[in-house]
């Protein structure tokens, strides 16, 4: 009945290789760990929506659970962040040229919060798979759950930041108006955009964990080029730069999302500050990043973080 094997070849009484494949086919067995079709994958991901949500909320809660002030840090962190940037750029460097003082502070704070949202989504994305290998290797679920979940966690964080933002904006004389509703579509588009980026970087980070070291520098460059603490047209006005460079800076998705939120919430920040077709740009970037990110991630589903 039993046999001792000293060499690799399969047991003599065991069916040969072709037979095994045929046996599997006859009983309708499927290859373990194979990549599902794209529609099937979307269905699986949707089936895990409660897990994705619970995981992101759990991460959010766990983040500050050891701190004495606890969840208060959700609000305090963005506030301190904004204060630092105001001190450096508003007071020391005088980056507010072209913007009236009562507009500059909410302008800066909005920029910091909105950009931080994209920035932290990318950083979380890079580590989404490579930093959770234990989870990836222990349980079976669509891997895209992780980057999506991390992007959602950042969105929750952004909602806390928005609370701070409302207070800051009101303190500088902009009061709730109908235009504030525009924040909702703008941020929704940004959520899609960020999720797409997180998916892209999750796959890249799974293959090359070194990205986690590199990305902070790339993102900081992106931040300084996106007009977080200065107005791009005002800054470029008296400089001799080719017009295409100004266009590139303005079409940058991060700048677009920031401008849209500023436009919606700050009274003194009228449509004259907005580049043309900014909504179309925001929508286009969101769709592009979302679709590309999802497709790119799905392509490596059966390989990600397994090696």
């Amino acid at each position, binding site marked *: *009945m*039993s*046999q001792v094997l000293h060499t690799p070849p399969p047991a003599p009484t065991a069916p040969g290789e072709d037979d095994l494949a045929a046996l599997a086919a006859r009983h309708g067995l499927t290859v373990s760990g194979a990549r599902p079709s794209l529609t099937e994958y979307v269905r699986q991901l949707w089936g895990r929506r409660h897990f994705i949500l619970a995981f992101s909320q759990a991460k959010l809660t766990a983040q500050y*659970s050891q701190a004495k002030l606890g969840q208060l840090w959700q609000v305090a962190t963005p506030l301190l962040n904004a204060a630092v940037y105001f001190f450096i750029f508003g007071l020391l460097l005088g980056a507010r040229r072209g913007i009236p003082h009562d507009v500059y502070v909410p302008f800066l704070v909005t920029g910091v919060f909105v950009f931080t949202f994209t920035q932290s989504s990318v950083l979380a994305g890079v580590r989404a798979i490579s930093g959770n290998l234990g989870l990836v290797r*222990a349980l079976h*679920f669509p891997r895209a759950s992780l980057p999506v979940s991390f992007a959602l966690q950042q969105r929750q964080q952004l909602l806390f930041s928005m609370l701070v933002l409302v207070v800051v904006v009101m303190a500088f004389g902009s009061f709730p108006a109908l235009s504030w509703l525009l924040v909702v579509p703008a941020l929704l588009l940004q959520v899609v955009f960020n999720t797409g980026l997180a998916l892209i970087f999750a796959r890249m980070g799974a293959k090359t964990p070194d990205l986690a070291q590199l990305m902070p520098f790339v993102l900081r460059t992106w931040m300084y080029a996106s007009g977080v603490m200065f107005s791009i047209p005002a800054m470029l006005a008296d400089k001799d730069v080719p017009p295409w460079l100004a266009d590139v800076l303005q079409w940058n998705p991060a700048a677009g999302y920031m401008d849209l939120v500023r436009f919606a919430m700050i009274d003194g920040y009228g449509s004259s500050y907005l580049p043309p077709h900014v909504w179309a740009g925001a929508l286009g970037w969101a769709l592009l990043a979302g679709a590309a990110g999802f497709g790119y991630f799905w392509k490596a589903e059966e390989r990600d973080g397994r090696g």
Partner: protein
Amino acid sequence: MAEHTDEKIPTVIADGVDIVYRVNGTGAGRGSATAALNRMLRRKQTEKASGVRRVHAVRNVSFVAYRGEAIGLIGTNGSGKSTLLKAVAGLLPVENGRIYTDGQPSLLGVNAALMRDLTGERNVHLGGLAMGMSREEIKSRYQEIVDFSGINDKGDFITLPMRTYSSGMAARLRFSIAAAKDHDVLLVDEALATGDRSFQKRSEARIRELRKRAGTVFLVSHNNKSIRDTCDRVLWLERGELRMDGPTEEVLQEYEKFTGGTDKAAKAAKPAKPAPKPKAHA
């Protein structure tokens, strides 16, 4: 191995499976930074020269598991048991060969999904969702899970963060969460070794119960007694090769001869073969 007649339905078929780990950063001992640079500059060299080590963890393993079987996996440390189990679960890619399964086999273990900073209560929900249970299922089984774990026997601990638990308590809660779900093909990796004696008895009973409901159970263990108690067929892996496949008693006798005596002696001096497993998570 049995002849497959028509009433024997296969649930897992492994067909010449090879599994290879690649480990980064094992290159030239002197100054790993220069080794890394070297690796980047000369891309087109062999994996070995570029400091990537290949660990061949499972070699050409073939077997067919049928519905209703409980199969033990034995072998000395580092012989590829857990790796093979992970591949069956579809969590590790195979280098060569194929693994066919009926439905989705699940590994019994949720350690990785749980967060130390969250309360036991939230971890029960999170772990359940991670295993693919629905919210209603978790709600209806919640009390059962907590009672089984015995976490609340000594006070209201379930509402405390898991980092405050003793290691035994945490292990018990993890097992209780993992065992709450019904599986078609269930893979158990040394889960029985957790907790105190009374909990071990309860968890062995739970495994047998799960086995009744599951199609096929795979059990990795160094405890030959629990293999004898639960399994009717045993696969013996040694250095990644399938050395023996047969009825429990026959294989265990050979294995005990190989490891030098009885279960007790084997336990006292576990032969350690530290084949490096990169970040293999139990």
